[in-house]
């Protein structure tokens, strides 16, 4: 089974379908048409750029180059996490979130790529880049949910945190319920996705593999592995991100530095 190669003209024809959603959005005066055009252009250009870049990356397949690209993805994910959260971009958050995401990714990559798949070459581009990208994309989403929930819940229920401190809790003990809720909130979307996968949705990676000629059985094996990687990676990175940020955002008296919040 060989995949049908798309020509640029065929791809261009694909864009015609946008007339339908564009018309609906325009008819209901949603104000989203401009946004739709910008988002479509961005999506196309970004993917074109990555496509050409990955061609180059796959051709050279150099471990250091692959590692460098993974670092770039982690840095972008780091800033995107803070940008999408309602917190200020500050040194006290950027570095901890970077290290949390990086450590989470390293652990997941080493485990799945080297121990489970047992790549013949360390960080082989064909496997390392797409799998890192998928795990990272999910870590980003979970980190945004987890970090936002943790700090805004703490801000909102400051009195409860203080009550625990005043009852002799260490900072870690007093933060326990806030950690608990942030983990619940950030784990729920992935758990829900795992519970319905295959029944409601066919995931992108599996679809891609089937389209490019893999047998459905191989595709689901990889999909199961990637779901395990995503779930473990997201929980680990949310946990580490909050843990590392907490080292930087509390004063000696255990009070939260509220300058991390946007006004």
């Amino acid at each position: 089974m060989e995949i049908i190669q798309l020509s640029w003209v065929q791809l261009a024809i694909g864009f015609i379908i946008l007339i339908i959603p564009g018309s609906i959005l325009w008819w209901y005066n949603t104000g989203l048409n401009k946004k739709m055009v910008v988002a479509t252009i961005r999506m196309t250009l970004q993917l074109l750029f990555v496509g050409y870049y990955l061609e180059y990356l796959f051709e050279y397949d150099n471990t250091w180059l692959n590692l460098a690209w993974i670092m770039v993805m982690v840095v972008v994910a780091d800033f995107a996490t803070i940008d999408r959260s309602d917190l200020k971009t500050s040194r006290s958050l950027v570095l901890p979130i970077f290290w949390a995401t990086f450590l989470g990714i390293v652990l997941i990559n080493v485990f799945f790529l080297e121990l489970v798949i047992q790549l013949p070459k360390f960080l082989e581009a064909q496997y390392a880049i797409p799998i890192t990208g998928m795990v990272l994309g999910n870590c980003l989403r979970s980190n945004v949910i987890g970090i936002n929930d943790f700090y805004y819940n703490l801000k909102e229920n400051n009195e409860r945190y203080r009550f625990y401190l005043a009852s002799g809790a260490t900072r870690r003990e007093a933060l326990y319920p806030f950690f608990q809720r942030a983990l619940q909130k950030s784990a729920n979307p992935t758990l829900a996705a795992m519970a319905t996968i295959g029944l409601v949705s066919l995931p992108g990676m599996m679809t891609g593999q089937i389209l490019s000629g893999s047998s459905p059985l191989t595709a689901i094996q990889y999909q199961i592995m990637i779901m395990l990687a995503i779930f473990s990676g997201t929980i680990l990175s949310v946990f580490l991100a909050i843990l590392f940020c907490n080292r930087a955002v509390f004063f000696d008296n255990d009070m939260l530095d509220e300058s991390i919040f946007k006004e």
Partner: protein
Amino acid sequence: MLLQARHVDFSYGSETIFDDFSFGVERGERVVLKGESGGGKTTLMRLLLGFETPDNGTLEFEGSPLEGSNLKEFRRKCAWLPQDLNIGTGTVDEVIQFPFTFKKSGNQSPDNEKIINILSDLGLDNDILQKDFADLSTGQRQRTGIALCILLDKPVLLLDEPTSALDEASKEKAADHIFSDQDRTILSTSHDPFWIDKCDRIIDLDSETKDAS
């Protein structure tokens, strides 16, 4: 002196709360703070607990500044009843049990019978333990908070308006529990003559701050 404030200045933005304020509480003393609302009664407790930092001056516990390890030691030795009774999540039982999981706090987990007796003295039925804390009325929350302060059995109590939601009978019972230990130091705020009468000393923050300025 067990607790002491020396020449404390504190303001919220442009509003001065304390200007060169000093006071002290001896071990075993029962002190009630009086004053208009916004006069600094609650703020004083927050300053002692290290939730706010004075602009100038020092706060001390057992002769050492209330900071670092001494602040933590003070928090381990006290129980605080705040005015905002958002003190936990889950069932009332979970809210009561949670502070007893703090390892270094020295909090001794109470047995069920003791919990039920104290709740009953404060006019709460024991089926309240299974209710969600968030669903309780303000009065029920305050009673739960007082019950928790009693159960924590600490040498220092900081109580913000402890009797404001209690009826006469529960007030008597609450006071019996709270004042039973002669060595216990109590710093409280109250407008209630019943409570004020139980205390050894009244500090009028209005006159204190006026005197100072």
